């Protein structure tokens, strides 16, 4: 198990994606970044003088252009005439919190500002590569409707979405690439450049184990050049062991601190809005436990899968993470012991409850291997915890306790 074994997809910033694109031979506008104000001048001096510049706030969320900063500054993307204005805009972004339709109300702090050359746009397109679950094959998706929400295009005019499946045994074939480039209505030099870009982009997707690569928009310029103007890339976390260069691009400040903490102990944790925390073994049962809390009128505070072979230390760390959340009013433990023996879990629970001096009510439902011994350990502990025999009973109890607390 590694530190990233439990999160299934790793995101990176746009500027990082564009650097990877450039290395892979996918055409992008020139750009530079700054992570503090002292870096502004140097970053901007690397761009052509007197030309328009695009200033972009870097966060792991879309909708930046239409977003608003909590300091009142509007827009996470600005096109400006020169470096002086670019610097002004960048100052309003860096270190401030940007709220977009994808960040949630709390928004995300901007730690990096990206400056790129502005380019004249003839037309915007959409291009993406992702894994198609239904066919178990990579699929290239393209559309003449770029720069807009592709889900909406797929809904309102599905005929404008081109899809090409790539057989992993054969790889991407030349005729398939032509299909897309012709399908986008390109000709001449733009056609040739687009063909090259699609091949490079697909190769990047495949060799780097991406989950998704999205270019929205892909643009043609008045002179016929084809460029990736935006880049959204994420990686299959299960494949990171063969891409140490990608692992280095992880930005922990973009992730929930509790989720990062949990991942250190191989705990699969996702924070939610409710006040009933739960600790469960197995992802399916963990989801089902959240569901049953809701069914009995409660609201789950998290998803937490301690895995199939959790030990005492993991149980303790799991509790520590759960109680560190002030909104948690009660904790439900639901363990179906298979590999994981109930007596081991019970000992872990008792030790953690004592060590952490837990004040929130606790309901424990154990079933499976060595369940009688496990229940005895809980009963003998003298701790104020409620046992339950079935998951339904446990959920009913915990919801009542959370309501009283």
């Amino acid at each position: 198990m590694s530190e990233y074994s439990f999160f299934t997809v790793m995101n990176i910033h746009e500027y990082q994606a564009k650097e990877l694109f450039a290395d892979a031979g996918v055409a992008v506008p020139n750009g530079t970044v700054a992570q503090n104000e002292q870096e502004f001048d140097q970053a901007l001096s690397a761009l052509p003088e007197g030309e328009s510049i695009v200033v972009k706030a870097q966060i792991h969320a879309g909708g930046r252009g239409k977003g608003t900063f909590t300091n009142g500054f509007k827009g996470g993307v600005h096109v400006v005439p020169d470096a002086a204005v670019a610097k002004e805009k960048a100052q309003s972004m860096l270190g401030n919190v940007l709220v977009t339709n994808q960040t949630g109300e709390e928004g995300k702090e901007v730690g990096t500002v990206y400056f790129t050359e502005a380019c004249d746009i003839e037309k915007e397109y959409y291009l993406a590569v992702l894994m198609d679950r239904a066919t178990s094959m990579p699929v290239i998706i393209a559309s003449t409707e770029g720069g807009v929400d592709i889900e909406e295009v797929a809904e309102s005019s599905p005929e404008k979405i081109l899809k090409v499946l790539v057989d992993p045994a054969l790889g991407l074939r030349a005729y398939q690439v032509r299909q897309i480039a012709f399908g986008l209505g390109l000709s001449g030099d733009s056609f040739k450049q687009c063909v090259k870009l699609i091949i490079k982009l697909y190769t990047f997707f495949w060799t780097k184990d991406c989950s998704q690569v999205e270019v929205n928009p892909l643009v043609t310029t008045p002179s016929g050049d084809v460029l990736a103007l935006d880049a959204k890339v994420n990686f299959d976390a299960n494949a990171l062991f063969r891409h140490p260069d990608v692992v280095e691009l992880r930005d922990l400040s973009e992730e929930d601190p509790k989720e990062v903490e949990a991942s250190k102990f191989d705990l699969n944790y996702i924070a939610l809005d409710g006040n009933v925390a739960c600790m469960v073994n197995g992802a399916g049962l963990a989801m089902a436990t959240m569901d049953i809390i809701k069914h009995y009128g409660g609201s789950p505070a998290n998803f937490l899968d301690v895995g199939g072979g959790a030990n005492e230390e993991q149980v303790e760390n799991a509790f520590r993470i759960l109680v560190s959340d002030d909104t948690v009013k009660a904790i439900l433990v639901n363990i179906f012991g298979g590999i994981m023996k109930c007596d081991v879990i019970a000992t872990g629970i008792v030790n953690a409850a004592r060590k952490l001096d837990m004040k929130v009510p606790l309901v424990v439902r154990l079933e499976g291997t060595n369940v009688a011994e496990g229940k005895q350990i809980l009963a003998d502990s003298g701790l104020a915890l409620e046992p339950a025999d079935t998951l339904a009973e446990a959920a009913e109890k915990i919801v009542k306790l959370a309501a009283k607390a």
Partner: protein
Amino acid sequence: MSVLVNKDTRLVVQGITGSAGSFHTTQCMEYGTNVVAGVTPGKGGQKFQDTVPVFDTVQDAVDKEGANVAAIYVPPPFAADSILEAVDAEIPLVIAITEGIPVRDMAEVKARLATSNTRLIGPNCPGIITPGECKIGIMPGYIHKPGKVGIVSRSGTLTYEAVWQITSAGHGQSTCIGIGGDPINGTSHLEAVQLFHEDPDTEAIILIGEIGGTAEEEAAAFIKENVDKPCAAFIAGRTAPPGRRMGHAGAIVSGGKGTAEAKMEALLDAGISVAETPSHIAEALFKVWKP
């Protein structure tokens, strides 16, 4: 009274000398599974538990011991290679327990499977058990009991929950198939349901699904058209927020697709008894099945 595995199964375990492989193989042997061989490259010639011959290649295990089912406990970086090796040795059934295999590797495996006669179960699954005859995987054997209910599920412990409810009510299972929580897997809900549909000893079917993809809907459509056996189902993930993967790489609601509601609706439309909570899976089955 079963599908896929039974007392005649001759199992080869790939990764038998690793920690997970040796622990679970021992458990399976204690349960009564006929483990005829193990494979760990470089350890050919050794004996596991003083009885089971270890080979360097799967082909050796097939040639010398007549292995006809393979179980894979090989670590994720090498697991796809192990599956392909079993496919090349023409093993008809491969069960991949390993969690965390890269999606790209599985896409390649899927392409190879399409041109072979091998069925893959998993990866990232608890395995398969025909109670009283053969247990291959990591599930606790004693919660099962020989009987008439076929169970298919993406999740491990949630399956145990359903199994235990059936067993506690005095009934048993024909075979339980864990198909795994990954977005690309070998055997789908639909294919497992087909197997139970054709098995004369399976009287009733339980389908346990979760958010993400459309596998449950496809199984529901098949049941609606073809299956007369009583069916019950449960779908996990009604409270999961969209866009977040809930542990299993496959469990995600995105672009309004793969929601629990849509799946439950499809299941209800197929005449399947859908459990409201994970505690009521057996109860949902007994509403439509009178054993």
